[in-house]
C-alpha cells in the first residue's frame, strides 16, 4: 500500500524548496496573516452553522460519557477504562468551553478583529525594530534572491506605514461604529493595504514594486468606495480605480522598457549595468524611467498627475483619506527614492530636472488651487499635493554630492512628520463630519471653537504645523527640506517653496478663521446643543498625533537622527 504513495527519488524531478528569510519578509507576512485571520474569523462566525455544529458536538459529548460508562461496564472488550473516560470528559469540557468562547466572540466579532489587527501590527513593529538593529549593527542586505532589501530606508518607511496603520485602524473602528457598516472586511482590507506598502518599502526588484503597488492600490480602491451609504464614496472609488489602473499601467510600461534597456528588473543589478552608460544615449532607458516617474508621481499625488486627489480625498471615508495621505505617500515615495536615488543615481542629470519641475508645479498647484476651495477635505487634499512638492525637493537634491544624503533624510523626515499632521487633521475632520460625513464644508466649521474648544484647538495645531509655524514639527520638516536644497546651492527652489508655503498658510488660516469666527449657529446642519461625539479610538489618535507633532517640533533631534541613519539605500 505504501508503494502507492512513493515515487522513486529522482534528482531531476525533485522539487527544490526555496529558502525563506523570515526576518526580511517578516512584517508583511505578519500583517497578511492577521488579515487572513480576520477574514477567516468573520466568515466562520457569519453563518450560523458553526454554532449549530458546535451544539451538536456538545450534545454528542454529553451523551458520550454515560454511553461510554455503560459500554465499559458490560462490554466484553476490556480496555483502559479510566483513560478513555478522561479523554471523553476532556473533549466534552473542551468543546463546551470552545462553544462558549465562540458565542462570546460572535457577539464581539468586530472587537475581536480589531484585537487581531492590532496584534498583527504590533508584531510587525517588533520585527521592524529587530530589522533596524540588524541593519545598524551589520549593515544592509538583500535576501529572497535579491527581491527584498533590508536597509535603513526600508525600515524607516515600514515604521511610518505601520504607525499610520495603527491610526488607520483606530479611526476606521470609530467610523465603522458610527456608520453602522460591516467591520471585519474593512480591517482586513486595511491590513492588506498595509501589507502591500510594507512589501513596497523593501522591494528591491521592479516587479515586486509593481505588484506591491497593485496590492495596496486595489485595497485602497475598495476602501475608498467602502461607504455604501454615500454616493460620493462610490464615485470617488470609481474615479480612483480608473485613473489608478491607468497609472499602474504606465508604471508597468516603464518597468518593461527599463528591463529592455538594462536586462534586469533587480535594482542592484540595474545600477551595476548603468555604470559607464550615458543615459541620454539610451532612449529605451530614458522613456522607461520617465514612465516610472509618471506612475509613481500619480501615487504620491504630485502635480500634474494630481487630478484624482481632490475628488478621491473628498469622497473617500475620512479614515481612508487619513490613511491614504499618511501611508500611501510614504510608501510611494519610498519606492521613488529607492528607484531614482538608489538605482538611477548615475543618471541623475537626466531625471533631476524632471523631478525639479514636478516639485515646483506641485507646490504651486497645491497651494494656489487650495485657496478657492470651500470644502475642508478638498483643501487638505490640495495641501497634500503641495506637501508632495516639498518632499520632491528633498528627493531631487538627494544625489547632490555636497548635499550628501541630506536630501534623502530630509524627504524621509518630512514624510514621517506629514503622516502625523495629516492623520491628526483628518481625525478631527472625521469627528466634525458627523454621521454620513455630511459636514465638511468651510461653513460647517463656523463656531467650532466655541462649541468644541479642545477639538478646534487641536485642529488649529495640526493646520499650523502643516503651514510650517515654528515650535511645531511641520516647521522642522520644512526647514530640513529647504536646508538640503540650500546646501546643494539651489536657492531658487527653496525660495519657491517658501513662497508657496506662505500661500498655503493662507489656506490653513482660512479654516482656522472659520472655526474661531461666527457663532455657534453658523453651522447649518448640527442641531443646537448636539455635541460631537469623540470616542476613545479617535481620542487616542488625536492626542497621540498632537503630542508627537508638538514633541518633534520642540525636540526634533531623535527623529532627525533616525532619518539620517535611514538613508542607506542598498543599491546606492
Amino acid at each position, binding site marked *: 500500500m*505504501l*508503494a*502507492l*504513495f*512513493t*515515487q522513486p*527519488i*529522482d534528482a*531531476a*524531478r*525533485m*522539487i527544490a*524548496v526555496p529558502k525563506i528569510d523570515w526576518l526580511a519578509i517578516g512584517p508583511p507576512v505578519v500583517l497578511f496573516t492577521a488579515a487572513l485571520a480576520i477574514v*477567516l474569523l*468573520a*466568515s*466562520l*462566525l*457569519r*453563518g*450560523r*452553522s*458553526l454554532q*449549530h*455544529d458546535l451544539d451538536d458536538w456538545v450534545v454528542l459529548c454529553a451523551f458520550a460519557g454515560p454511553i461510554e460508562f455503560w459500554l465499559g461496564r458490560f462490554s466484553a472488550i476490556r480496555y483502559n477504562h479510566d483513560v478513555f473516560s478522561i479523554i471523553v470528559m476532556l473533549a466534552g469540557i473542551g468543546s463546551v468551553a470552545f462553544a462558549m468562547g465562540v458565542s462570546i466572540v460572535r457577539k464581539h*466579532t*468586530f472587537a475581536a478583529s480589531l484585537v487581531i489587527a492590532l496584534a498583527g501590527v504590533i508584531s510587525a513593529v517588533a520585527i521592524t525594530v529587530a530589522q533596524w538593529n540588524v541593519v545598524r549593527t551589520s549593515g544592509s542586505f538583500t535576501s529572497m534572491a535579491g527581491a527584498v532589501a533590508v536597509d535603513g530606508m526600508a525600515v524607516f518607511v515600514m515604521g511610518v506605514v505601520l504607525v499610520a496603520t495603527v491610526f488607520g485602524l483606530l479611526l476606521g473602528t470609530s467610523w465603522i461604529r458610527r456608520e*453602522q*457598516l*460591516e*467591520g*471585519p472586511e474593512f480591517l482586513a482590507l486595511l491590513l492588506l493595504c498595509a501589507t502591500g506598502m510594507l512589501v513596497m518599502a523593501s522591494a528591491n526588484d521592479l516587479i515586486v514594486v509593481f505588484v506591491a503597488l497593485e496590492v495596496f492600490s486595489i485595497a485602497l480602491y475598495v476602501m475608498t468606495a467602502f461607504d455604501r451609504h454615500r454616493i460620493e464614496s462610490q464615485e470617488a472609488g470609481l474615479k480612483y480605480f480608473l485613473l489608478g489602473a491607468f497609472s499602474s499601467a504606465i508604471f508597468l510600461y516603464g518597468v518593461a522598457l527599463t528591463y529592455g534597456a538594462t536586462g534586469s528588473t533587480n535594482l542592484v543589478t540595474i545600477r551595476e549595468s548603468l555604470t559607464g552608460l550615458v543615459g541620454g544615449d539610451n532612449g529605451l532607458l530614458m522613456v522607461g524611467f520617465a514612465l516610472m516617474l509618471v506612475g509613481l508621481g500619480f501615487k504620491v499625488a504630485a502635480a500634474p498627475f494630481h487630478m484624482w486627489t481632490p475628488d478621491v480625498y473628498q469622497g473617500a471615508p475620512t479614515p481612508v483619506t487619513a490613511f491614504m495621505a499618511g501611508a500611501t505617500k510614504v510608501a510611494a515615495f519610498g519606492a521613488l527614492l529607492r528607484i531614482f536615488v538608489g538605482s538611477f543615481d548615475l543618471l541623475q542629470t537626466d531625471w533631476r530636472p524632471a523631478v525639479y519641475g514636478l516639485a515646483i508645479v506641485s507646490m504651486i498647484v497645491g497651494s494656489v488651487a487650495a485657496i478657492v476651495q470651500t470644502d475642508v477635505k478638498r483643501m487638505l487634499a490640495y495641501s497634500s499635493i503641495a506637501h508632495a512638492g516639498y518632499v520632491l525637493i528633498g528627493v531631487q537634491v538627494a544625489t547632490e554630492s555636497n548635499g550628501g544624503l541630506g536630501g534623502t533624510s530630509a524627504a524621509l523626515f518630512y514624510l514621517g512628520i506629514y503622516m502625523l499632521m495629516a492623520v491628526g487633521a483628518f481625525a478631527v475632520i472625521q469627528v466634525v463630519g458627523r454621521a454620513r460625513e455630511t459636514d465638511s464644508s468651510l461653513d460647517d466649521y463656523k463656531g467650532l471653537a466655541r462649541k468644541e474648544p479642545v477639538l478646534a484647538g487641536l485642529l488649529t495645531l495640526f493646520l499650523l504645523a502643516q503651514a510650517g509655524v515654528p515650535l511645531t514639527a511641520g516647521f522642522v520638516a520644512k526647514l530640513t527640506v529647504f536646508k538640503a536644497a540650500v546646501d546643494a546651492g539651489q536657492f531658487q527652489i527653496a525660495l519657491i517653496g517658501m513662497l508657496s508655503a506662505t500661500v498655503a498658510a493662507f489656506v490653513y488660516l482660512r479654516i482656522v478663521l472659520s472655526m474661531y469666527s461666527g457663532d455657534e449657529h453658523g453651522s447649518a446642519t448640527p442641531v443646537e446643543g448636539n455635541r460631537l461625539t469623540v470616542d476613545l479610538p479617535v481620542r487616542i489618535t488625536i492626542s497621540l498625533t498632537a503630542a508627537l507633532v508638538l514633541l518633534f517640533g520642540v525636540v526634533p533631534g531623535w527623529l532627525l537622527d533616525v532619518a539620517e541613519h535611514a538613508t542607506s539605500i542598498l543599491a546606492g
Partner: protein
Amino acid sequence: MNALFAADPLFNGDGLWGSIFVVVLLKVVIAFVVLLVSVMLYIWGMRKWIADMQNRTGPANAGPFGILQTLADGIKLFFKEQSIPSSADKPIFRLAPYLSILPAFLMFCVIPVGGKINVLGHETYLQVVDLPIGAMFILGCSGIAVYGVMLAGWSSGSKYPLLGSVRASAQMLSYEAAFGLGILSVLMRAGTMSTREIVNQQSWTNTDGILQNLSNFYVVPAALGFVIFIIAAIAETNHPPFDFVEAEQELVGGFVTEYSGIRFAIFFLAEFMNIITMSAVAVTLFLGGPNGPMFMPARFGQSGWVNGTVVPILWFVGKVLLLTFGTVWLRASVPRLRYDQLMAFGWKWLIELAVLWVLVTAGILVLGDRGWNPAAAGVLSFGIAGAAYGLLYLCMPKSGETVEEFR
C-alpha cells in the same frame, strides 16, 4: 527544430519538406477521419446502449444493427435547407459551428494513440504532434471551447439561445479551474507536460504483478484528481447531467435552437467529439494511455508490429471505450441538476477539493523528497487538508440558512 515544436523522431533530421511534410499531413488527415468515424460509431453505440438500458431496440434499420443510422442522419442534415434568422449576426452565426468543433479536434492532436511506426521510411509517433507542453495545450483548447457555444447563442439574435449560451459560458468557466487543477495533480507527479512523457511514466512491465502495474497509472496515486477531472470534464463538455446549454424543458433547444442543416450537424458532431477527446485525455493522463499488458511477448517480441503497434492501439481504444461507455451510462441514468446546484457544487466543493488535493500532492511529494516516511507524509498532508476543509465547511452557510450581518 526538434526542440521547438515537438519531440518526434520525425524531426530529428534536417529539413521540413518533401516526405516529412507528407507524413505530417497524413497524420493530420487520418486523425481527423478516425475521429469522425469514431464519433459516428459512438453516437450509434450510445443509442444502442441507452436503448438496452431502457428495454428498447434502438436504431435497427439502417445497415446491420442500425450501424449506419448516424450516417443516414448526417446525410439527411447535409441536404436540409439552412435557415439563418433575420436578426442574426450572420458572419458569426456561420463561424460558430467551426469554432466549436476546432478545439475538440485540436485537443486530440496531442493524444498519444500508440507507440512508434514507420511511414515512408520515417520513424514517427502515433500521435499528430507531441508538444513539450501538451498538457497546457489541452487546457488552452478547453479554454477556447466556450467560444463556439457562446457565440452561437449570441449570434442567433434570439432569447433562448442567448440564455443557453450565457449559462454555458458561466458553467464552463466555473469548471475550468477544477479541470486544470485535476490535470495539475498529475503534472506534479509526472514532472513534465508532454503527454507522451506522461504516458511513458505510467509504464506497464509484464514481469511485475498486475497491482504493481496498475499503481503505476496515475489514477491510483492521483485518485481524487481523477474523480475531479472526470466531473469537471463532463461539465466542460456540457454532457448530462450538466447539459444546461440545451435544457429542453427550459430553453427549447438551447444555443442550437436557431441552427439547422449541416451547421446543426457540426454542433452535434462537436459535442460528441468532445466526449471522445476528453475520454482520450483522461486515458492519457490517468489510465496509462496505450500502455497495457503485452500479448505473448515471448512469442511476438516486445517491439514487433504486434506488441509495438497493434496492442497499444487496442489498449488505448479499449480504455477510451470504457470511459465513453461511462458517459453513456451517466446520460441514461442521472437526471439533470438544477442550475444553482451546479454552480454551488462547482464553486463550493469541487474547486476547494481540487485545490486541497493539489496541496496534498505537493505535501506528499516535497516531504517524500526530504526523506519522510510516505505514510507519515500522507497522514500529515491529508490531516492538514482535512482540517482546512473542515474550516471551509464551517464557513459555508448551509442551504436555507440566512447569513447574519455584523454591525
